[in-house]
């Protein structure tokens, strides 16, 4: 979905999907701060969340910040729906993401076993 959302004006480095902030801002406004905050929310401590929240609000402003945490929380839900039900990757997505999955090493994820199967 990230690669499909890129406009012709954008130049993004999709390695940031797996490497996070160490890939820089990826050409996305607030990319580093978003990556750091999301990582803190998903697997960090309260202190890490607090520190990165303040930084992200400073960079994006409060409205966009709320949308970042709302989206992150929604995907804490969506990933568990996908892996908790064992759904396969849709045919359209399977074909369109072949190169991307290979370059990012996504095929090595343990969940690829059931998600990668052909429908």
């Amino acid at each position: 979905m990230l690669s499909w959302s890129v406009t012709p004006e954008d130049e993004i480095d999709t390695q940031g999907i797996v490497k996070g902030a160490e890939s820089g801002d990826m050409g996305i406004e607030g990319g580093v701060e978003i990556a750091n905050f999301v990582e803190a929310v998903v697997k960090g401590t309260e202190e890490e969340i607090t520190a990165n929240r303040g930084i992200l609000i400073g960079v994006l402003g409060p409205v966009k910040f709320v949308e970042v945490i709302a989206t992150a929380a929604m995907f804490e839900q969506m990933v568990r729906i996908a892996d908790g039900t064992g759904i396969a990757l849709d045919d359209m997505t399977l074909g369109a993401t072949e190169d991307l999955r290979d370059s990012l090493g996504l095929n090595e994820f343990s969940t690829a076993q059931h998600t990668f199967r052909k429908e």
Partner: protein
Amino acid sequence: MSAPKVLMTPDEGLYEAVKTHLSACEVSVDEKITEAHAIWLSRLRRPGTWWTGAERIAIAKTARAARDCPLCAAKKEALSPNSVTGEYAVPDDVKAILPHEIIELVCRAVTDVNRMTKSAIAAIEKVGLDHGHYVEALGLTVVTRNLDTFCRGLGLPFYDLSFDPVDGEPSRIKPVDAAMGEEFVPMIRSAVPEPPNDDLWDPKTVGNVYRALSYVPNAHRDTRLLAKVQYVDIDHLLDFKSNSRALARVQSEYVASRVSAINECFY
């Protein structure tokens, strides 16, 4: 299109409680998110398709407790989750009303979902439960995870779950067009579900993630309710040109991609 039997307005007391709760954070939260969270909490306390209101609240409490459960952490670290035994750190009132098998699946869905298996889910049939019990429990579990993460990210405590359940029995109605396939649970497979579930998705954009919870249609309706205010209306998921948010779509997708990658979710 048939009108779904699902609550679309929040209980007044819960709505006020959510408003008060979210007003304590340092930023202003969109009213649509406030209302959607209050609607879901109002749905939580009512009888569902397979669980009573009290059982549904207990499932949400289990999903929350799994975050800090030592047994869950030990199972996640183990080569095989089944090699580690012990007591789940869930409240006593939860243990009193939920089958152990469901507590185990809810905990795995929260902390170790990458190792969920078809056979682990099918095991609930041995204790007289239907796949619908699991699908509804999973739906409640993942929304609890969503709302707890949202509150945590804002620097707030979690929503209070100590409200009273609404009395009544679950409907136990299965979609007539659901069937088991290679996935872990039965799903509606047709592009256009049979009534009264023909509101579930737009046949032009339906993907497997839409079908995932469709064995319990109201669990999918919960996802739709929250996705619309926290991400995008899932009927417009593939419409990358229109964007009603302050965040650019590429920023939203970067957040989504990072969360998925950190969780090692291939889908």
